[in-house]
C-alpha cells in the first residue's frame, strides 16, 4: 500500500469513530398537525428523539395504527452495534499499520459486508415495525396499508411525510467508505512499481 493509502485508511478509521458520538441516521415526520416536525435519531447504541419528547410523541401517535412502541432497550442490534463499530475501527487502524494491499482488500470486503448487513437490518427493522401491527388494538385500520418508513428518501404515511436520511455520523461513515475506496484504488493503480523500489 502506498503511504497515502495507509493515511487514508487511518483517517477513515478516525472518521468512523465519530459514529460513537454522532447520530447515524435520522427519520423526520411532518404532518399538518406537526409543522414543526417530529424526528428520531438512530445512534450506534440507542434511538432518541430529535427534540427531547419526540420519540415519546411518535410512540403515542403510533398507537393509533397498532404499531409497537419503539423501545431502544428492546432492540438487540443496539446492544452489539458499538462492538462491531469498535472492531471495524481497530481493524482499520491495523490495516493502515500493516500496509499490506491484500489485507486491505480483505478488510474492505468485510467492511462492505458489514455496511450492507447493517442497511439490510435497518430496512428489516422498518419493515417489521411497519407491518407487524396489532390489529386487535389498532384504532385506524386501512386494508393493505403498511407503515414502513423509507430506507432513504421520503414517503407519505397517512397524514405524515416520513423522510429517512443519514445523519452527521452516517455521512462521516459514507466519507470513510469513500476514503477506503480511494485507498484501494491507489493501492492497485501503483501496483506495478513497489514503493520500496522507488525509494
Amino acid at each position, binding site marked *: 500500500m502506498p503511504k497515502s493509502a495507509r493515511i487514508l485508511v487511518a483517517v477513515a478509521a478516525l472518521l468512523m469513530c465519530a459514529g460513537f458520538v454522532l447520530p447515524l441516521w435520522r427519520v423526520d415526520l411532518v404532518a399538518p398537525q406537526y409543522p*414543526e416536525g417530529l424526528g428520531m435519531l438512530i445512534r450506534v447504541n440507542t434511538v432518541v428523539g430529535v427534540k427531547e*419528547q419526540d420519540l*415519546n*410523541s411518535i410512540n*403515542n401517535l403510533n398507537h*393509533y395504527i397498532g404499531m409497537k412502541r419503539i423501545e431502544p432497550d428492546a432492540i438487540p442490534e443496539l446492544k452489539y452495534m458499538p462492538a462491531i463499530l469498535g472492531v471495524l475501527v481497530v481493524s482499520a487502524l491495523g490495516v493502515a499499520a500493516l500496509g499490506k494491499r491484500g489485507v486491505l482488500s480483505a478488510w474492505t470486503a468485510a467492511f462492505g459486508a458489514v455496511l450492507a448487513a447493517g442497511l439490510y437490518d435497518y430496512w428489516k427493522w422498518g419493515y417489521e415495525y411497519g407491518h407487524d401491527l396489532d390489529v386487535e388494538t389498532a*384504532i*385506524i385500520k386501512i386494508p393493505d396499508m403498511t407503515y414502513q418508513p423509507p430506507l432513504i428518501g421520503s414517503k407519505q404515511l397517512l397524514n405524515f411525510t416520513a423522510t429517512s436520511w443519514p445523519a452527521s455520523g452516517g455521512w462521516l461513515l459514507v466519507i470513510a467508505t469513500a476514503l477506503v475506496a480511494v485507498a484501494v484504488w491507489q493501492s492497485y493503480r501503483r501496483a506495478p512499481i513497489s514503493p520500496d523500489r522507488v525509494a
Partner: protein
Amino acid sequence: MATFPKFRTLAGAGVIASAALLAFACAKRPSSGGLISADAAKAVYVAPGQYDEFYAFMSGGFNGQIGVYGLPSGRRLKTIPVFSQYPENGYGYSEETKPMLNTSYGFVPWDDTHHPALSQTNGEDDGRWLFINANNTPRIARIDLTRFETEEILEIPNAGGNHGSPYITQNSEYVMSATRFSVPVPNSDVPISDFKKRFKGQISFIRADQPGKMAIAFQMIVPGFNYDLARAGKGPSNGWVFFSMYNTEQANSLLEVNASQNDKDFVAAVNWKAIEGCAKAGKTKNVAASYVHNFTDEFTRVAKSETVTSVPQFEAKDCPGAIYFLPTPKSPHGADVDPTGEYIVAGGKLASVIPVHSFSKMIKAIEAKAFEGNIDGIPVLKYDATLAGEVKNPGLGPLHTEFDGKGYAYTSFFISSEVVKWKLGTWEVVDRVPTYYSVGHLMIPGGGTMKPNAKYMVAMDKITKDRYLPTGPELTQSAQLYDISGDKMKLLLDFPTEGEPHYAQAIEAKKIKDKQIKFFKLADSKAPHVSRSEKETGISREGKKVHVRMTAIRSHFSPDNIEGVQVGDTVLFHVTNLEQDWDVPHGFAVMGATNGELLIMPGETRTLQWTPKKPGVYPMYCTDFCSALHQEMQGYVRVSPAGSSVALSGVTSRGPQSLPKAEAGPKQQQ
C-alpha cells in the same frame, strides 16, 4: 390645609364644558373612506401563516383579564385570566387555581384591570413579565410571559381603589400602587364626613424582581387625596416616581363638582431611593395588617395563598426628601415621563394647557427651597419653579401622553376625541388626528420607556357608536392603530377588543416568542396528585371524600368508568394530562358539576371538585377537541345512594378491576 392661594374658576369650567359640547357637535363622523389611504390595508395585512411584529397586551378593564393581540393586524391571540374566573380554561374553578383569587375578603371572582406594565431592564422592555393592577379589591398580579399565565398576586393593604398602579422602575426593582380612594387607615367604622380628619392615601412600593416573592417594601401614608396615575423616572430621574392626583379639595361627595374647585392639583414627585435610605435607617414601622400573597409553585403548579400580617409603613413627613408636590392645573390624569427622563407631562383633564414639568428644574427648586407652602409636612414647590413649558390650546380633556423617542409627544384628548402630536422643548402642536370616539389611554410600543419603538400608536376608545355592526344596548369598545412613522399620523385599522381596553403595552414579538414553554415536563412534576403514567392512577376513599387520580392522553381517560361513589360524597378528580407535546391540552367535564370544567395543559395535573346530589350514572368527557377520536374520549361515573355496598372501582386499559388505592392525602414529594 393648603397654605398656597386657591383660585376658584367655576366660570372657567363652564366655558370648557360648553366648548366640550361644541366639540361633540362638530365631531361629525367623517367618512372613513376619505381618511384611509389604500395603503392602510397593506400596512396591517399579515398574510396567513405570517407573524405579527408586536405582541400587544391590552387590559380587559371590567372583565378582569388581559387580551393579547398581534400588531399591526389586530388579531386576538389569547385571553389571559388574571383577576376573574375564566370558564374557558378553568382558572379560578380548579382546586389548583382557586387560591389565586383569594383575598383578605375571601374568594373574589372578579376585578377590574387597568394598567399593564412590562418588566424592564435598563429602561427597556425585556419581555420577562407583565404586571397589572386590580382596581376594586386592590391587588397587583405578575404574569409570566414564558407561559402567558398569572403566576402571582399580591394584595395591597390600606388601599381603596388601586388605580395608580402598577408602574414599574427602569430595572423592575419596584412596581407601584397609589390609592384612588383614600380610606381610614387602618380601615374602621368612622363617619364619612370625617374624611379630612380620618381618611388617608397611601403609596406602596412592591418588590417586583423576584418571581414568587412580591412583597411590599414600604408603604408611605400621604394626605387623603385621590391618587390617579404614575410613571417612574428614567435616566437622570431614575430613583423618582411621579404620581398625578385630584381632589386635593378632599371632597367626599359629589366629586364631579366638589373636586373640581381648585385651580391646581398636584403631581407628587416621590424619591424611592431616599425612601430606601429611610427604611434602612429604621424609619419604617411594621404595622399590623392582613393581606394575601398568592403564587403558583413552579413544580407543583398549585397556587398557594398566604396571609401577610404586617406592612412596613411610614408617614411622609417622617422621611424628609421622600415626596414633593408639584402644583399642576386641574385634576391631572397622566403623569408621563419622556424617554430622556427630563420632562414630566401632566394631563389636566379640565385644563386648557398641557403643563410640562422639568426634572432638572425641580431638583434646583428643591435645593433652592422654592416652596410655596407645605401640606402635612410635604413641601409644595412653586409652579413656575418646576415648569418647563405649556402646550397652549392643545385640545379638550388631555389625559395621557406617550413618546416616540424622536422628540415628540402624543397626548390623548377624551373630550375633543383626538390624539395630538407635539414637540418637546418648543411645546408646539405639529399634528392632530381624530379618534372614534373618546380616546382614554394611548399606547406606543415602549412609549413609556427609554427606548420607544415608534412605528405604531394605538388609541383605546371608550365609545364606538356607528363604527361597527350594532349589538344591542352595549357596543364594543375598540382600539385604533395609527402609523406614526412619518410626520403625519395615519389611521390604519379599527379593531374591537374584549372588555374595556383601558391601557396596553406592546413589545417586539422577538423578545417573547422564542421563550415559550411548550409543555410541562411530567418527569419534573411535583403535583401532589400527579399520575405520571396510567399505572399510577387510582381511586380511594377518605371518609366522605373520594380521590380519583386519572390520566388523559389521546384519546382516553384512565380510568374511564368509575363506580362506588355515593350521594353525599365529594369527588376530587385529579386529572393528569400525560401528553408531552405542544398544544395538546385535554379538558374534563362531568354532567351536573356546578363549578366548571378543567383544561389541563400537557404534563399538568388539575383537580375538579364535584358533589353529586342524586343517584344515577353521570357522563364525563374531554372538552378540548384533542384528536381524531376526541369524541370517544369519555366515560361514566356511577353514583349510588348513601350507604350503598357498591365497591369503589374503575376501568382501565388493563381491564375492569379495582384500582390500586390512591394515597389519601397529597403524595409525599421526593
